[in-house]
């Protein structure tokens, strides 16, 4: 059965409103129960909290008004719009097993297997955080500002795990004279990113299919290496290789800046975050949080390592902030 545009928009808006209620009302109620000493293992409220986190996302992607069926019915036009996209694909490229084993975010087929996956992912990402983006600058712009504050003279930038280009755009907009290279595994996402960059008139940006843990760039190629929500998608061994690769690619004295999720030590925060990981099909989120990143970075030859909570929208780090949010963290370090 087809889905008309109005029904799709209404169906998705319903889910977003439900997610907003979950974010602003159910999550604080669960936290209040926990703080009152209740055992969440016995909590009916927590059961609904978990159910909704899992299934609102399933409805969003695969439901009757889901992103996947809605975009699939427009497949021919969407695929055609990518035909001339100037992304560089690697011939005979094979996706790593860890990448194809699980459909991350409950995105059917993952973000890589379907030629229209980039469109589905892009549309889905607009409503990942129900509270962000309304009254604030987008978090990607905040990350770009934070990175350029640390590397004001960056002229060669590598964006690892660029996806459909949302993280890359603020860099090529802020640095029109710079050379920005953006790499990812997903061919469909790279094609969408390249198409959009061309439409935006960006000249100094390239989108290339490449594994961030073993790139083809010469040593000391970049003034800045960055990633946004990449590290938690990688198994620990690949995180280590990726950070080592970032070290190899940076010129001495240059910095890398990664935005990702690292919960604090509170058991409740970890329960919520690791539970989210399981419910959202994120097998490497908990392993990343359990890595000793400062020790690893020192061993790899970085210095001035700084890992800080990141304010993705105004006020989210305030003591009184009670709504659900990702534990955003900015990880930065300088190459010796």
């Amino acid at each position, binding site marked *: 059965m087809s889905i008309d545009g*109005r029904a799709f928009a209404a169906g998705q808006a319903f889910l977003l409103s439900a997610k907003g209620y979950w974010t602003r009302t159910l999550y604080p109620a669960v936290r209040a129960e926990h703080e009152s000493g209740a055992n969440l293992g016995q909590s009916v409220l927590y059961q*609904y909290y978990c*159910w909704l986190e899992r299934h*609102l996302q399933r*409805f969003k992607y695969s439901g009757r008004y889901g992103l996947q069926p809605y975009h699939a019915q427009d497949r021919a036009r969407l695929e055609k719009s990518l035909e001339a996209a100037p992304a560089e694909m690697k011939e005979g490229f094979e996706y790593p097993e860890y990448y194809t084993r699980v459909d991350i975010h409950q995105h059917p087929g993952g973000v890589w297997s379907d030629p229209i996956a980039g469109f589905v992912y892009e549309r889905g990402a607009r409503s990942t955080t129900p509270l962000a983006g309304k009254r604030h600058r987008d978090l990607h712009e905040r990350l770009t500002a934070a990175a350029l504050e640390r590397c004001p003279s960056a002229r060669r930038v590598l964006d690892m795990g660029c996806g459909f280009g949302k993280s890359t755009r603020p860099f090529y907009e802020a640095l029109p004279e710079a050379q920005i290279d953006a790499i990812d595994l997903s061919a469909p996402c790279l094609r969408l990113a390249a198409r959009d960059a061309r439409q935006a008139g960006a000249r100094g940006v390239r989108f290339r299919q490449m594994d961030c843990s073993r790139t083809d760039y010469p040593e000391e190629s970049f003034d800045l290496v960055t990633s946004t929500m990449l590290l938690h998608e990688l198994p620990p061994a690949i995180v280590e290789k990726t950070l080592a690769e970032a070290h190899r690619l940076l010129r001495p004295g240059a910095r890398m800046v990664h935005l990702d999720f690292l919960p604090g030590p509170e058991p409740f925060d970890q329960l919520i975050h690791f539970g989210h990981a399981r419910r959202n099909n994120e097998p490497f989120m908990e392993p990343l949080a359990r890595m000793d990143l400062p020790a690893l970075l020192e061993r790899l030859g970085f210095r001035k390592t700084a890992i800080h909570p990141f304010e993705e929208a105004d006020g989210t780090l305030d003591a009184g902030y009670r709504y659900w949010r990702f534990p955003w963290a900015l990880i930065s370090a300088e190459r010796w």
Partner: protein
Amino acid sequence: MIPEQTFFPDPALDRAFGVVMALAQEMWVLRDRVAGMEAQLAEHGVLDVKKLNEEPAGDERAAEREAFVAHLMQDLLGQQQAKGTR
């Protein structure tokens, strides 16, 4: 196919709540569509929204509503409707 995750002590509730949420979403999609139709009809002078919104003088759809409610509630009785075995 991999079995879906469950969160309630009885997995029947996991599935039933999925049905509830699917119906709620359908209801919102319908409400949105009806509101859109009302707006277009009013714009073209076909519909008097004020009159539509008034409390009705009579109860024209009482019988229809009673039947709807009876159909909705009858499963609560747990009775077979056609003679069979226990």
